[in-house]
């Protein structure tokens, strides 16, 4: 990888998408709010990331961000508003729950940004690691594992990063119980957590 300079050419979103689909056929992409999102699957993810890093025209030296969003099974009341465009269908009605992992790539020499979205089943979320392509993915993947339970195959040290090591569950999932941690009170009084309490139940 050559040392980047600020002399590259910024590709427009459609040119960027064309460049990627020319190499990876059948790659879906959408553009919303001026941002390009490319929808990859787990099998092509590492190849796609490697291509984005090594290709001269795409040239993304920096994995700017790696995060996850949980879309549980069932219907979501997504209020469709006029500005909502390019919204993939699986987000509207869901047969299966998904965890969507988002890779934001930034090209410093060209100046463009693109997002790669990979949706995995939320029952057993599993993705290949990106640490072989971008080393910075190490902490990010540990965070996504910690909060959403996505297992990254091949990660050098996939342990919890922000939550305690013995924590049960993945707090950023939408099915994670809110207030589900028992609070110990004096004299062994048992107060159930808020989501297990009946409405207006008074505990004395």
């Amino acid at each position, binding site marked *: *990888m050559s*040392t*980047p300079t*600020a002399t590259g050419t910024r590709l427009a979103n459609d040119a960027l998408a064309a460049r990627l689909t020319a190499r990876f056929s059948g790659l879906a992409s959408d553009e*919303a*709010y*001026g*941002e390009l*999102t490319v929808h990859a699957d787990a099998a092509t993810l590492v190849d796609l990331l490697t291509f984005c890093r090594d290709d001269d025209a795409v040239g993304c*030296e*920096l*994995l*700017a*961000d790696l*995060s*996850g*969003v*949980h879309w549980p099974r069932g219907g*979501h*009341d*997504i*209020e*469709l*508003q*006029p*500005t*909502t465009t390019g*919204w993939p269908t699986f987000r509207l009605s869901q047969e299966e729950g998904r965890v969507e992992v*988002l890779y*934001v790539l*930034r090209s*410093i020499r060209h*100046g463009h*940004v693109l*997002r790669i979205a990979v949706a995995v089943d939320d029952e057993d979320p599993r993705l290949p690691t990106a640490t072989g392509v*971008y*080393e*910075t993915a*190490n*902490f*990010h993947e540990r965070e996504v594992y910690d909060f959403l339970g996505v297992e990254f195959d091949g990660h050098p040290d996939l342990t*919890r*990063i*922000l*939550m*305690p090591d013995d924590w049960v569950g993945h*707090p*950023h999932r939408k099915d994670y119980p*809110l207030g589900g941690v028992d609070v110990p009170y004096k004299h062994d009084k048992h107060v159930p957590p808020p989501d297990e309490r009946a409405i207006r139940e008074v505990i004395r």
Partner: protein
Amino acid sequence: MSDTTLHGTEAAEAADRATSADDPTLAALRAGLEGESELFVEGADWESVADAVRDETLIVNMGPQHPSTHGVLRLVLELDGETVTNLTPIIGYLHTGIEKSAEYRNWVQGTTFFTRMDYLSPLFNELAYCLGVERLLGVEAPPRAQAVRVILTEFNRIASHLVWLATGGMELGSTTVMTYGFREREHILDLFESQSGLRMNHAYIRPGGLANEVTDDFVARAEALLRRLPEKIGEFEDLLTENPIWNDRLRGVGVIDVERALALGVTGPLLRAAGLGHDLRRTDPYCGIEQYDFDVPTDTAGDSYARYTVRIEEMRQSMRIIRQALDTLPSGPVMVADRRIAMPSQQQLGADGMGNDPAYIRHIMGESMEALINHFKLSTEGFTVPAGQVYSAVESPRGELGYAITSIGSNKPWRVHVREPSFVNLQAAREMTRGHQVADVIAVVASIDPVMGGVDR
């Protein structure tokens, strides 16, 4: 394999007996160390530990309460003698679940949470979040609000770098720098307090503009600061630039080159000190910052000293930006006109000591029932934001601060993920300290400038 474990008093007793060569405990200990064994020592004299360990790898916990680890950072050091062979940052001690909490509050309340993440650059957190929400809403803050945002965030950059200088100086033994740094920062916080009411965690930048119009003396206060700061920053340079201790401790320590920095996701002053002049204010300008003239300082050494010179120069460049922004400060509102988003932002101090907007109150209470209903809805459930995903990033004092915001069209965010520069930059600590001495770990961590509120979120 034999496990030999020594605890506090036992270790001390072993040390007392260490002089006698035929001591059975120490003999057993040494015999154990010939094979693969672990020695666990707490609270013993260093000399006795070193004597027992001899040339084995020593694992030492630094932190989480170590005063020079910037809060609650725990570093596990693997030492070969005095040389660091590996460093593992253990984080999460300050995790507060801000991202999760924000999913259960409305969009405006989000600023109150995110401003508390990186507590040394609260305005940048607010700005990045609000720019993202504004992109989803399809609105743009009025020019006056944009200019005030630039002025305040650049002052915040100076304040943050001053704290870096103060704490970094203190960690390297220069308490004078500590008092000077915090002293100047106080004056900047005074400005923030006069505008937002709070010295930190302001929640002053809101989706659509600012929480309130700036005060009448805002420009005068800012100019007084601009007159004061250059001389004071010169004082830091007089104290440190040629200082032999400062040079010896920082030069050649914690070197990272551009290629490794990019692979590890390192941005901000660390990347610029390595030689790449990447600055989001240049490549992805926000709030009209492209209309101001400023330089992006770089260095080529990539060591801790280069980070010092880059940060000092950044403070000067921030003042240049503020100077121009003050000269061209536009008049007009500081909040978008759309009443479905805008809370009243032209408040005045009333006779009762409370801030209110008399014209707005007259309108909703006396003139329009619909306006009252709107105000009620806005204050209780908040506004809705169109569904979609955005990633909005600003150049915070520590690097690229990005907000990945997902909305499903309701009055609350579905998910907000924060790309924290402290969190990402901390990964590079392992590489930057390898082969250095234990004392250099302090210098390297100080030069990374991690803020644990941002790392742990």
